[in-house]
């Protein structure tokens, strides 16, 4: 096992060579905000929340998909990064209809927590107010596109952990939507096993258990990581 030595926010630390910058930072107790990343799933670097400044690269890179390298000097909390992170969260709020006051996930939402973390007291961009549908055709679960941030955690949990690949993404840009099977009502999906991993993986109120109302959703987002660790390492650690 080779070890790399690197510096994050002025702290000299060592990491295993297969680790990402995000994992190395977390092991050292340095918090980097994330949204699309979830322990147990592959990383896609989609949300850009975890962008870090690595000296000598000339551009910002997502910590979740960047491997550690010998001698890296990394900054995670520069003024520029912090202003970009707030901008990203504001754009997510502007892109769909995230009305915390009437959301099932109010009080247990990663997007809401990120807004607090980046100091978002208001959104400086014009809201798009897209017309979004809600799919409650599934017997146990619901899908509210108003709250979706397109992190694709549901897609990856379903494909990589459950092995069903019911979820996918259709469309491009602001018209992109998560879909089930051939973009058909969730309740008519032939591949969905109703396991609920997508619901647990979802960071917002986009996927929810039916019957819950405002601020009642409380998800166990560590469930995916627990299952994968148990499966791959035979360790049932909570």
């Amino acid at each position: 096992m080779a070890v790399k030595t690197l510096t994050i926010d002025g702290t000299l630390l060592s990491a295993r060579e297969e680790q990402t910058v995000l994992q190395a930072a977390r092991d050292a107790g340095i918090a980097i905000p994330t949204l699309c990343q979830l322990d147990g799933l592959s990383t896609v670097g989609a949300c850009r929340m975890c962008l870090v400044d690595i000296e000598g690269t000339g551009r910002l890179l997502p910590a979740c998909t960047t491997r550690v390298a010998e001698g890296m000097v990394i900054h995670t909390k520069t003024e520029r990064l912090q202003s970009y992170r707030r901008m990203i969260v504001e754009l997510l709020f502007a892109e769909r209809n995230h009305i915390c006051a009437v959301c099932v996930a109010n009080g247990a939402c990663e997007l809401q927590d990120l807004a607090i973390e980046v100091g978002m007291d208001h959104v400086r961009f014009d809201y798009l107010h897209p017309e979004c549908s809600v799919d409650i055709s599934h017997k146990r679960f619901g899908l509210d596109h108003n709250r979706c941030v397109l992190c694709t955690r549901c897609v990856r949990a379903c494909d990589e952990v459950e092995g069903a690949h019911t979820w996918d993404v259709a469309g491009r840009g602001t018209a992109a939507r998560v879909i089930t099977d051939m973009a058909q009502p969730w309740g008519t999906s032939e591949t969905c096993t109703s396991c609920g991993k997508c619901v647990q993986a979802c960071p917002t109120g986009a996927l929810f258990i039916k019957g819950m109302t405002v601020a009642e959703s409380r998800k166990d987002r560590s469930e995916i990581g627990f299952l994968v660790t148990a499966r791959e390492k035979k360790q049932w650690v909570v």
Partner: protein
Amino acid sequence: MGRLKFATVWLGGCSGCHMSFLDLDEFLFDLAARADVVYSPVGSDIKEYPEGVDVCLIEGAVNNDENLEAAKTVRDRTRLVVSFGDCAVSGNVTALRNTIPDGARMVASRSYLEQADLNPMIPQAEGIVPTLLPLALPVHAVIPVDVYIPGCPPPADRIKAVVQQILEHGTAHLEGRQLKMG
């Protein structure tokens, strides 16, 4: 600083933020000792928004032409404008209609025609009944805003934190969990 000229206004909101303001309970006595409430739906009976106001808390989104005029008047006559609650800060529930194509007409039609038991008609009276704007907007979309208090409604301790900062420093800025929307 002399006594603070303090105002609150109520635009397109449910008055929940003002109810939360009344939840300040005994702190209202401290505020009354240091401020004159020169305009407020819950604190005075003055019909005309006065000149030379130090601080104004604006509840609600800018939903109709009357709201828009009120927001502009507040900005013209007030040193520190505070967006008070989620509807003022983001549009919130008031702006839910923005997701519906031709929302202003659709919500009026739904409320006054489809749901009416007696005399279905859209209320119209020039100069009396305000006209809905095409979109319900956050306050900062129509006038510059100095301070933001998120929350639906903002809890009393959050309002107190802002008012205390204003009394002590002339302005305010919330951080951490005090920024929680919803």
